[in-house]
């Protein structure tokens, strides 16, 4: 008896919580996998949140919880936000995928936006950025700048997004420097300054004079600075405090326009499920200022490539391209389709080393 009444009141409160909020402020929640001060991935999502606040002022209220572990903890944090009247919740890590879907089922009136996943629902959209477009520009600069012809790459997890980045950087480095080699270290973390610094040191000791990273902290930048004569690129965020050396450029995730657009859609009642994958052209991927450490002709070449990608004239995955095992992938002039890119689980020809299985 007690339990049923408890459940009934629970259902009632759920209904109230999701129904009664639309009148005044629109409440937008953000779930972060790292700390907002990571200087990379989470930092940029938080910049997007602040942009939403700046855009709508009194009409929105934003809340966030940082350092949320993927799994049951994230499910609870999302539920907590929904219970407290959030209208729109951005869940900003791949591992929040199933929890987002679970919570979305319980709160059909709350809209959810999951970053970098692939599962959608009537109230769940997914969004990601074509970071690999930025990697093409990085690869070009890396190929031109390396003297040892060894480029070090700190991978986070061997998931399609990271593999795409490695392939794209490699293809474009190889194009301008046929002798280039990539050395890849898997850190198995998105954010762990100590591990990232170790990975950078190992790569530098193996002769790498360019370090690319797919992890979120600035620790590799610091390691490169200490080693001297090693160049790096900011990841997710500009990491401009390390310019002009070692950081010579960066890939900047710019979530602000998307977050503002989606918040507006909730306010107007025009929100629909979408699957967004935007790149340099739409402004979701930015290329940070290329510093003076890069010669003018290389800078011009990189900017020309950036422009060509933005206009759609150049696709970073254009044939002829073979897979690592030598089998044919793309014929001359053929471009990769989004489906293959989304699930990419192979290296292109020329990269040594295996994808951890």
């Amino acid at each position, binding site marked *: 008896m007690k339990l049923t009444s408890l459940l009934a009141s629970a259902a009632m409160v759920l209904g109230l919580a999701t129904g009664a909020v639309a009148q005044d402020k629109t409440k937008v929640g953000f779930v972060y996998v790292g700390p907002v001060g990571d200087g990379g991935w989470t930092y940029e999502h938080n910049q997007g949140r602040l942009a939403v606040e700046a855009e709508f002022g009194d009409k929105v209220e934003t809340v966030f919880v940082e350092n949320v572990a993927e*799994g*049951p903890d994230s499910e*609870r*944090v999302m539920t907590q936000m929904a219970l407290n009247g959030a209208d729109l919740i951005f869940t900003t890590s791949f591992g929040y995928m199933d929890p987002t879907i679970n919570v979305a089922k319980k709160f059909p009136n709350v809209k959810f936006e999951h970053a970098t996943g*692939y599962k959608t629902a009537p109230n769940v959209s997914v969004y990601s950025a074509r970071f690999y477009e930025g990697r093409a520009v990085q690869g070009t600069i890396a190929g031109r700048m390396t003297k040892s012809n060894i480029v070090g790459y700190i991978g986070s997890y061997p998931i*399609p997004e990271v593999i795409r980045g490695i392939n794209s950087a490699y293809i474009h480095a190889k194009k301008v420097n046929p002798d280039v080699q990539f050395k890849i270290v898997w850190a198995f973390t998105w954010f762990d300054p100590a591990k990232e610094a170790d990975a950078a040191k190992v790569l530098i000791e193996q002769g790498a004079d360019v370090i690319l990273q797919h992890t979120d902290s600035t620790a590799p930048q610091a390691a490169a600075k200490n080693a001297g004569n090693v160049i790096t690129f900011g990841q997710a965020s500009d990491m401009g405090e390390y310019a002009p050396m070692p950081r010579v450029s960066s890939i900047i995730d710019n979530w602000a326009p998307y977050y503002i657009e989606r918040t507006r859609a909730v306010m107007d009642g025009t929100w629909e499920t979408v699957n967004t994958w935007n790149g340099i052209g739409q402004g979701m991927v930015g290329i940070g200022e290329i510093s003076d450490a890069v010669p003018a002709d290389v800078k011009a070449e990189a900017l020309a490539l950036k422009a060509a990608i933005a206009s759609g004239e150049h696709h970073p995955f254009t044939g002829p391209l073979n897979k690592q095992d030598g089998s044919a992938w793309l014929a001359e002039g053929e471009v990769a389709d989004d489906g293959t890119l989304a*699930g990419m689980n192979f290296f292109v020809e020329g990269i040594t080393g295996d994808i951890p*299985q």
Partner: protein
Amino acid sequence: MIRLEKRPQPSQAWSMATPLVAVLATMLFGGLLFGLLGTNPFLAIETIFWEPLFGEFAFYYRPQLLVKGAPLVLIAIGLSLGFRAGIWNIGAEGQYIIGSLTGAGVGLAFYPLEAWYIFPLMVIAGAFGGWAWATIPAILKVRFGTNEILVSLMLVYVAEQFLASMSLGLLKNPEGFGFPGSRNLQQYASAHNAEIVTGTGMHWGVVAALIAVIFAYVLLNRHMLGFQIRLTGAAPRAARFSGVRPARLILMCLGISGALAGLAGLFEVAGPAGQVSIDFNVGYGFTAIIVAFLGRLHPVGILLAGALMALTYIGGEIAQGQLGLPAAAIQVFQGMLLFFLLALDLLTNYRVAWRKPEVA
């Protein structure tokens, strides 16, 4: 001059009182910290301790306390047996991971068959996995005299590598578009550790934790093994003379704590977490060490300590979401709890005395 004098007998009163005093001191200094961060300290403390239990949405948070507390209690009970006998299993996190892998592995091997016996088999496999992982440091200690603290701790990192490998390879969801992570066991009825009564948070892991508390209580108070554990902790030499075989005790204590940690992993992966993923482990195995000491290595104390820890986690999340407190402040708050507990522990064995400095 203030001096510490060793008490002839450890103080019974202080032994009971220190956890309470530690909690109060944590509230006081934590409130101070929150105040310095610009948050109303009373509101923050109320949000952390009151909101999950009696707040507006307590109907949701109360079951979550069980979900969060159960693995902590289950693991801590196992650890406390060894800790009492001076056998230090620091690697419960690794045993938790391996238990989840063996348990989930058995379940996934049957997919998509639906049968009643799958979940019980997974439970056995989970316990076995954790037991086997903990038996490694046990055997190395018995045979070669290695330090079980180091070996069990190092095996956590080995287990994490296994977890990554399994998420990316053997147990990867074949329908997952190449992304890491296994199939979701929540969508596989025979393997799902579902809530026994919907909406209560009461899953089999919670039941197992309660059984473990009772089991440990009976073991320690009514059973020969429990007596040997207590005796070895209190007086190792006397224990030797009274016929305790240290090797057997090491194998038993590490084995039991490993099996319980493995069970916790299995219940978590088959229930609240749902899938094997690279970041599956979130530190229950390490937090359980705090819980074990916070609960004075006593089964009932551990039950209360686990509930308290769960409360600070969930209340901490609410404080983050509602008051904008940074995650780091919440972690400092939790850290204070252990710090004060250990610091105040001194009073159990020592007393503070005023005495004039002696003239040499």
